[in-house]
């Protein structure tokens, strides 16, 4: 029944789009209230900045953004929001998704709705295999986790590692990615510690104490960006793990730009692998960060979520121009296969085989700058990284036959 309603409304939407070909409706799903409101704001502003800085690329089309709040990582609210956008608002494309469980729950509705759906954050690797209409402009946990495993073994010369992770899909993904490449390069993961869930910030003391007692060379941590990351870094500092010679490493989620300054000196020396930080030295990023600070204040900063949203809008605009505003899903997907773009994070493209992003990964260290603030110093760069989970066909990333 629902499928029929969806199909009918999708047809309706198509005819509506034909009637006024110049206008493109985009449904944006993100948490604008609740625990993820700070992250939703990054999506919102990333979209806004793209529209402002690239007004000439959008002409002659008119973009209409319709926002829906998906509130929490439960999945249920997000699915309802997506359904409403497709059936009531008749959107031409969908975008957003901060949390993986929400993108996973929305996947069947997206498939039934037959509209281009651009994932701007949710990073669980196999999500893009769950609907043929998903295109991801953010990252997969394997981008950073897999690259970090190799860098930990080769560049940081670590022999042993402990992985601490929040016990939900991207956490397990990150663990699997790091472990696979770290052990392939001669390292050994000596312990895996689930450190509570993603819904609330636990006291990390017992988990990190366990890690400290086992004296690994590095402690690889994945927790959700935001307050979790802040708490981990503080506890790491308070337990004196740095002085004990245990390096804290992880994907850039744990050094999210908007939380970095609040971490204080405990964060100095932290080494992360990620595709973006606000200190990246390239012309696109300088322009992006300057415009951001001008609009939202000198203490505000974009982070990797904002860039995922910025590039997501670029992808949608490219697809809209290629289809002359019609946004027929198959034509839009075809236009995005192999699409190249010069993003604030460096050159990116969409892998035509997986619809996932190909981008550079940066190995960075947190340092204290002359201005007394914390910055991220570039240690190394890996070009054109693909999602290793799908490239190596691991677990749920293997194609279903």
């Amino acid at each position: 029944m629902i499928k029929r309603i969806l199909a009918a409304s999708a047809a309706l939407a198509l005819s509506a789009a034909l009637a006024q070909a110049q206008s493109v409706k985009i449904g944006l799903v993100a948490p604008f209230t609740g625990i993820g409101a700070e992250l939703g704001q990054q999506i919102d502003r990333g979209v806004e900045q793209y529209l402002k800085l690239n007004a000439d690329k959008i002409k002659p089309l008119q973009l209409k953004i319709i926002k829906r709040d998906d509130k929490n990582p439960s999945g249920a609210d997000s699915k309802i929001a997506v359904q409403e956008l497709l059936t009531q608002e008749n959107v031409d494309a969908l975008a957003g998704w901060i949390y993986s469980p929400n993108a996973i729950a929305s996947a069947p509705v997206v498939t039934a709705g037959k509209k281009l759906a651009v994932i701007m954050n949710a990073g669980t690797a196999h999500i893009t295999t769950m609907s043929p209409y998903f295109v991801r402009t953010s990252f997969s946990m394997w981008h950073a986790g897999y690259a970090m495993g190799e860098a930990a073994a080769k560049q940081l010369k670590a022999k042993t590692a402990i992985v601490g992770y929040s016990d939900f899909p991207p956490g397990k993904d990150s663990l699997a990615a790091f472990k696979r490449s770290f052990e392939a390069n001669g390292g050994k993961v000596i312990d895996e510690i689930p450190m509570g869930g993603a819904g609330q910030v636990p006291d990390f003391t017992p988990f990190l104490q366990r890690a400290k007692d086992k004296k690994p060379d590095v402690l690889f941590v994945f927790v959700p960006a935001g307050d979790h990351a802040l708490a981990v870094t503080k506890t790491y500092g308070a337990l004196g793990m740095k002085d004990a010679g245990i390096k804290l490493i992880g994907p850039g989620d744990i050094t999210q730009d908007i939380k970095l300054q609040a971490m204080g000196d405990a964060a100095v020396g932290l080494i992360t692998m990620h595709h973006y930080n606000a200190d990246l030295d390239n012309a696109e990023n300088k322009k992006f960060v300057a415009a951001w600070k001008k609009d939202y204040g000198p203490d505000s900063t974009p982070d990797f979520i904002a860039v995922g949203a910025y590039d997501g809008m670029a992808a949608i605009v490219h697809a809209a121009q290629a289809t002359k505003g019609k946004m027929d899903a198959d034509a839009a997907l075809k236009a995005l296969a192999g699409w190249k773009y010069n993003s604030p994070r460096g050159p990116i493209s969409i892998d035509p085989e997986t619809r996932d992003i190909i981008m550079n990964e940066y190995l960075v260290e947190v340092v204290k700058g002359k201005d007394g603030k914390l910055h991220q110093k570039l240690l190394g760069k890996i070009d054109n990284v693909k999602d290793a989970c799908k490239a190596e066909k691991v677990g749920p990333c293997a194609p279903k036959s």
Partner: protein
Amino acid sequence: MIVEIANMLLGGLAAGMVLFIVSVGLSVTMGLMGFVNLAHGGFAMIGGYVIVLAMNRLGVPFVPALLIGFIVTAAVSVVFERLLYQRLYRAPELDQVLFTIGLVFIMIATVTLAVGPETQPLTLPDSLQGQLNLGFMAYRTYSIVLIAIGVVIMLGLWLGFERTRMGAQIRAAVDNRRMAESLGINITRLFTITFAFGSGMAALGGGLGAEFLGLDPQYPLKYLVMFLIVVAVGGLGRITGVFYASLIIGVLDFTLKKYLPQGGTVFIYAMTIMLLLWRPQGLFGRPA
């Protein structure tokens, strides 16, 4: 090996002390008034917010901020007690539960509206950060400070309870309210003072514990079960009971999380059920 055991004990004791400071007020008010106050954690949250906001927005140092938190929360709780709680003292327990849980939701919504949904960061003074050298090992300074504060509060409460006139009146009222009333003790006043003091203690716990428990609008619901377990295991109205129960639960919870992180908190709940089946009045409570 000794260092590992010491690590575990210190970490667990510090977590236990936070539980003790927050829960002791709940134990006294429940024991004294027979009132099921599920909104107790709400007062801990209000206190925590007053303390953190005073520090972050007004630049008040840590210790004066704790005092402000205690006083403001105690004052707010007096208003609540006079206007609302008092009407339900003789009501059935279900009414009390429904009323206080409703109050929790109002508190959560109010704090979300007024301050926002995000976790409030508490920045400890530099002197409380880092590691303290104990001779044979170094440990987190703040944990050791918390343990010391907990012991001091415990001793102060014990002395106040056992050695002062007020303490004697409270003990008398807990044991036999009618008899205490007929001896001329002003129970209404005693209730108000005890309630305010219990809420003030919760506020201290909210502020002192923010480093471990965090501080966000969901706080009163997140930790409600923990506070109730402490009170149930410790026994109603028994300060020493709550103290030992907090420490036992703190150390057990820490140890289990450390050695069996996959099991999470299941063990604590399982043990509480077993314990209450064996001793329904709690480990340290007197049989009813």
